[in-house]
């Protein structure tokens, strides 16, 4: 009788071939952004601002209730007021929350010292608070666990270093930095798969995340022409060009179109 090793050789060859065909995840190593001397220092006496609102055109999708039965300590917190997904949070009159509005182009090659004050991302009731955070590159991010359960914090960046850290209840805050600009980094908790958040990282301070009223204000902008972009996790990006004279304030509005089928 022949030994059946040929069968295994065929399968091993198939495995090797297919693995070679699979896409390789690109490794990114985080480096601090190259600091170049300010092209022209910002003169606070002449700066202006861009403000406005972000709205949704069309009906927002009905928020979906999160079932936290898998985590009794969090289910108890939401016993009287259930938690809903925060993918689309609409205010009165169609205003849209959790939109990152920022200067995409026009800030030039000015170098901005990152603030020392950390931005916080809290895990409370098995949700991330806030749902979307924005910070400057190299500004500290403090991750807090206010829950009585263990979480893991797992950002999945494309342009920064990926990390995955556990945080049991009562553990010290986790302090991390992101060195490169990226809009926006999804954050997951694999222990509680409904927990999702986004972190937007900028090399300048001209950004803001909208609240439920959809309003934003980008302050201290020197005179110049800017591309202002609005990013939303479901609806993507939309942008406008604004030209500011010295001390001028302008108002712009962004409107995202609700996806069909929502």
């Amino acid at each position, binding site marked *: 009788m022949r030994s059946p090793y040929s069968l295994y050789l065929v399968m091993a060859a198939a495995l090797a071939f297919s*693995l070679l065909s699979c896409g390789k995840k690109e490794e990114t190593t985080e480096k601090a952004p190259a600091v170049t001397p300010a092209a022209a220092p910002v003169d606070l006496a002449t700066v202006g601002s861009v403000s406005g609102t972000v709205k949704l055109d069309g009906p927002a999708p009905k928020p979906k209730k999160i079932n936290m039965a898998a985590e009794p300590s969090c289910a108890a917190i939401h016993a009287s007021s259930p938690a809903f997904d925060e993918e689309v949070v609409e205010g009165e009159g169609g205003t849209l929350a959790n939109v990152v509005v920022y200067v995409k182009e026009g800030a030039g090659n000015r170098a901005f010292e990152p603030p020392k004050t950390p931005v916080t991302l809290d895990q409370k009731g098995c949700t991330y608070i806030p749902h979307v955070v924005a910070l400057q590159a190299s500004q500290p991010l403090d991750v807090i666990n206010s829950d009585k359960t263990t979480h893991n914090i797992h950002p999945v960046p494309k342009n920064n270093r990926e990390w995955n850290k556990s945080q049991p209840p009562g553990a010290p805050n986790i302090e991390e930095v992101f060195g490169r600009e990226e809009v926006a980094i999804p954050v997951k908790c694999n222990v509680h798969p409904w927990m999702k958040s986004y972190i937007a990282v900028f090399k300048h301070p001209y950004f803001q995340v909208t609240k439920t009223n959809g309003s934003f204000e980008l302050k201290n902008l020197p005179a110049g022409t800017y591309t202002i972009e609005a990013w939303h996790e479901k609806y993507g990006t939309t942008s406008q060009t604004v030209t500011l004279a010295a001390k001028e304030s302008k108002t712009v509005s962004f409107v995202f179109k609700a996806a069909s089928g929502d």
Partner: protein
Amino acid sequence: MTTSKKPGLHRFALFTAGCTLLLLVAGALVTSNDAGLSVPDWPLSYGSLTPPMVGGIRYEHSHRLIASFVGLLTIVLAVWLWLREPRPWVRRLGLVALGAVIAQGVLGGLTVWFFLPVPISVAHASLAQLFFSTVISLALFTSRWWQSDLPQLDDSGAPRVRQLGLWSVAAIFLQLILGAALRHKGFGIVPHLAGAAVVTFLVFWTAAVLRRRFPESAVLARCRVLLHALLGFQLLLGGAAWWSRVAAREFPQPMPVMVWLTVAHTVVGALVLAGAVVVALVCFRILNPAREAALASHSEAAPLRLSR
């Protein structure tokens, strides 16, 4: 042929195969619940052997515990074969199984350390299928049936049924790799659908040839039924799993219907491969290629000739 008929060894191999199937269920539950990185460290879990069993940690740590148990069973099986099995190639296959389970553990650890890179995740999922088929093969080789004197059948058609069986196994294994790549977001659905078409064609061809050339063989009739039943069930599960993935996409968390359908599709996929391996091995065991047929016939409807 030097043989051993040790029912204890055969039963132990079967038990190991059963536990491996359970391990496949546990592994598929990890992927479907997106819990692969719920435990950020390896080989320990949160620095201990008894992490808090909450949320996704339950799936990941249970998977690690069952995997450790299967690893232990495989060590016992390999040692038992080495000490008691007279056929050198079966002893060597026991070592292959041991090597595979060790490699599988290391691949699992690498997926944690490197945040589920697609090639390593796909390799982990695919090697799991190979390991299961290897243990099933060991159970077959140590069975009383395999080691008894069996009537030999002449296969005078072209292509040989042995060849068709091998092609089916290779196609199913490639299809499982494509499925794993789909689950781990390496490929889209199209390659997996194309693979399903190829596998269906080859399995139907193999079964049809078996029916045409060996209509009176009860063993081969059971092989045909096994292939048809597993493939049919798997195709239905595949459609249902895809529907559930699309339907559950808008929900903020993995929905139970999606989880269980995708787990079932993954595990039945392993059974399809193991079934095809068993059928191919049975064909190698009881079919003899008729020499003259290789020269004369290219017909599939060659006459039945029995020999011992």
